[in-house]
């Protein structure tokens, strides 16, 4: 397993090139937290259980993400600022197939 390169635009519009490990069971929400790209308390509020939508991102460039699950789909049905390309970062587990992913963190709440 190797690290992958992804691009994350924070809530201030600043783009960050981020190297993410694929061998630590991390998801995109945890990557955003570990790089401190969103203020603590405004990201991953529920801990990553698809229950708060604080980790919502807009997928700009999709290299082939896994399909949205029912829980994620249902949470996005209740969330604010939802767009066609919305996903929950906590449901996107880092895998090699995500090399080149580009996302923008959605506004909070």
């Amino acid at each position, binding site marked *: 397993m190797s690290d992958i390169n992804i691009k994350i635009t924070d809530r201030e519009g600043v783009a960050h090139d981020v190297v993410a490990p694929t061998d630590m069971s991390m998801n995109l929400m945890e990557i955003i937290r570990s790089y401190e790209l969103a*203020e*603590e*308390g*405004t990201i991953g*509020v*529920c*801990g990553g*259980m698809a*229950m*708060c*939508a*604080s980790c919502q991102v807009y997928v700009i460039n999709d290299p082939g993400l896994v399909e949205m699950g*029912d*829980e994620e*789909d*249902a*949470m996005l*049905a*209740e969330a*604010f600022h939802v767009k066609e390309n919305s996903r929950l970062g906590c449901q996107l587990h880092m895998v090699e197939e995500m090399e080149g992913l580009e996302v923008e963190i959605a506004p*909070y*709440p």
Partner: protein
Amino acid sequence: MITTDILIIGAGPTGLFAVFEAGLLKMKCHIIDALPQPGGQLAELYPKKPIFDIPGYPSVNAGELVDNLMEQIKQFQPGFTLGETAVSYTKVDDEWFEVITNKGTVHRAKAIAIAGGLGTFEPRKPAMDNIADYEEKGLEYFIKEPEHFRNKKVVIAGGGDSALDWSIFLSNVASEVTLIHRRNEFRGALDSVEKVQDLKNEGKIKLITPAEVTAIKGDGKVEAITIVKDGEEAYDLETDYFIPLFGLTPKLGEIANWGLNIEKNAIVVNNALDYQTNLEGIYAIGDINTYPGKLKLILCGFHEATLMCQSVYNRLNPGKKYVLKYTTVSGVDGFDGSRKEAEKAVVKKID
């Protein structure tokens, strides 16, 4: 006025366990929480989700952990001010702090422990220009007293457990219950979804999906809402109450203005000693605090609560000797007169 030894702000697991540790040291606690029930995130966000890193529990549902903590502290008879947020604090004299809530409830305590997790949970409000005009005038974000809605028309919006559960409950109380959700699918427990389906079939709940409430109308109070349903023209529906249940969002709230050292939305504490903040007598424990190496885990909150209580005890009883005891040895004396202790070993002579 409510008086106590330790005023705990936040009824999450850390705040609840602090009651137990304080009780062992004969100190009384009172808890303030913005939510209408104890349990914090565990009760509000994920009561049915399992937690796997509580020592001694290979797995425990969040709601069950809260129930167990409540059972564990029952003997120490904590007081609760629920559904209110701590707004202001003052140091009355050398002995007492005074904390007043948003509803004017006055608390006096000899120490304050802020155990507020991510902060005060506030409802996520729908984006409507005039929404503040109707708050508590027919627009409600929490249901504290269901009888309030008896024989009234109620519209609930949302697709999660809260929206489903309250629709079910109020179908036997209100004269009319309408549930509006953006999609046809609901996120709640399967049996709740099926129950709503049954009640809809029986005509006890009116279901409008996929649809959104886009406006509130009324002269000084809620009288109607505007609904936009997929593929249809917007229309108004008369109602006495509109209850949007879109989950909660944490905010540090008024505590941020108390003069505490705050870094990245968390309160800086002295973890090398006792989790005290920069204000003497005010502690911060659990997810709301920060210090080098901080981990936001429930078990860390339990540890911090224990050390905080020891520190408060020493502060309130200067010079008084206290030897750390193990409950297995010393037992637990509740404030309600109860006593728990290990069973004595059976000693029997063998001839």
